């Protein structure tokens, strides 16, 4: 087994003068073995995701990137971390700046991470345009989307724009926080299909917070179940959700609403 890209090692997190949000959480994310973080609201899923994204520092334990502790002070390493680890949010109405064109939104990682810095200045714009066009094409948006603004798109299309931004730097890992739960059912399936396709074609490892076990089953080969800030069960998705051992996991699997059975 290859070395994990991101690893949380015995991570704990607490806000000042508050009970711990996370306690002793260890999770490994290896190439192609995406992990779904499931659990009730308040279980600490989103906090864990923020730690894995380097947006907050754990109170105890360590977050490792390519085997070394992630240090926010090391700018060069943070840049390669940011390039390799991108994110998609739950609410596509909040995650796109309403005052920027889609081209500008999608190209933000290219500019901020200085990915086109090696090119001579005049060629940068053209290169950025090509990268944006390629990313938009990959998420199934028309070419003319680049010149338009977020409010001109539906929720599902906005989520595609957000995904385009997340893949434009050609990351290895995509950390997504409930990427489809704000979308309508039919849109939801299309975005899940898109993420599955990107996973195959780009070797993207998808790590995701989700309460929707069907989405989890479709996208992530591994599951970690969190309850009150602790991982109570983790392993292969089929094993954990197919025959859950922990009481909470069992309740979770039982609770998934299902369509009435098809007549035999």
């Amino acid at each position, binding site marked *: 087994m290859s070395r994990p890209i991101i690893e949380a090692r015995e991570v704990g997190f607490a806000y000042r003068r508050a009970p711990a949000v996370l306690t002793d959480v260890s999770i490994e994310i290896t190439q192609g073995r995406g992990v779904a973080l499931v659990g009730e609201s308040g279980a600490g899923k989103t906090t864990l995701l923020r730690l894995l994204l380097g947006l907050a520092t754990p109170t105890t334990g360590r977050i490792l990137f390519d085997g070394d502790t992630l240090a926010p002070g090391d700018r060069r390493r943070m840049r390669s971390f940011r390039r390799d680890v991108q994110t998609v949010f739950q609410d596509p109405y909040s995650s796109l700046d309403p005052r920027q064109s889609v081209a500008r939104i999608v190209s933000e*990682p290219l500019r901020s991470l200085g990915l086109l810095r090696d090119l001579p200045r005049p060629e940068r714009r053209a290169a950025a345009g090509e990268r944006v066009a390629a990313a938009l094409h990959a998420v199934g948006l028309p070419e003319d989307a680049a010149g338009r603004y977020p409010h001109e798109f539906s929720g599902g299309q906005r989520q595609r724009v957000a995904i385009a931004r997340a893949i434009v730097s050609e990351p290895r890992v995509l950390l997504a926080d409930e990427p489809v739960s704000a979308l309508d059912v039919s849109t939801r399936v299309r975005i899940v299909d898109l993420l599955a396709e990107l996973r195959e074609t780009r070797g993207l490892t998808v790590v995701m917070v989700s309460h929707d076990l069907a989405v989890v089953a479709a996208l992530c080969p591994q599951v970690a179940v969190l309850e009150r800030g602790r991982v109570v069960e983790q392993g292969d998705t089929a094993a954990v959700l197919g025959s859950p051992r922990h009481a909470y996991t069992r309740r979770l699997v039982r609770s998934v609403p299902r369509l009435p059975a098809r007549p035999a």
Partner: protein
Amino acid sequence: MSVEQALVGAPDGEGPKAATRHVSRSVTLTIGCVLVGVIVLVAVVSLFWLPFAPEDTSGGRLMPPGAPHLLGTDKLGRDLLTQLMIGARIALAAGAGSVVLGGAIGIVAGLAAGFATRWLDDVVSALLDILIAFPTLLLAMLVAATQAASLTSAIVAIGLAMSAIVARLTRVLVKRVLAHDFITAARTSGTSWPRVVLEHVVPNIWPTVSVNLALQFGLAVLAEASLSYLGLGAPPPNASWGRMLQEAQASVFIAPVGVIAPGVLIVVLVIGVNLVADGFRDVADPTRRRRR
């Protein structure tokens, strides 16, 4: 601060009426430009040409409109049109000066407070509240006490008072923008904080702040008028519309033009600036510019 709340809480124009309103927006911008343009033109002309010398009191007191005094004279026998033209210059200077000063201080302070962590934010907010509770006139008197009463001291006083209001508004707006996921997305894209401010925060708070500044411009014109009346504004013979109003009050029934003319001009300028700001916001806002 009902105005502030109204601005902060105002919906972004999404809704069934937005489309029809959009059409009339360019009309309001045009009307606003015309109104402000007229005042600016008058002010510019006053720099080169005036019908009479400002100190000329040869026209007789409280003359009705006619030749050679088109709008008549005031109670000292000065030409009213001349006074009004000079007043345009003062009003614009007072409005623009305080908006630039108050806007600059207010926006910077508001950005700082918006980004501040918990305790620092509390301290800044408390300071702002104290400053806002402080009457503008009292502040003006304090400023005037340290310097001589002049247009500059009036502008400094009004600007300082304004900066607190602008800062508080900016702080709220910054906090609201920072709560959006696109800020987090910018950070995970490696965007530095200064660039987050320039590329995301400022463009998103500017529409509301600029409209508020236009409103403040109008209030500054009015505040300057009150300060002049108290002898804390531009000293004579620099006629201010506000002082003209106050001076003509006593003779309103004998010479109504002396009250009506400066009053109308104040209203024209205040409304004009607001229309311009409102219209300009829509032109600058992609969510209103392109609608399908």
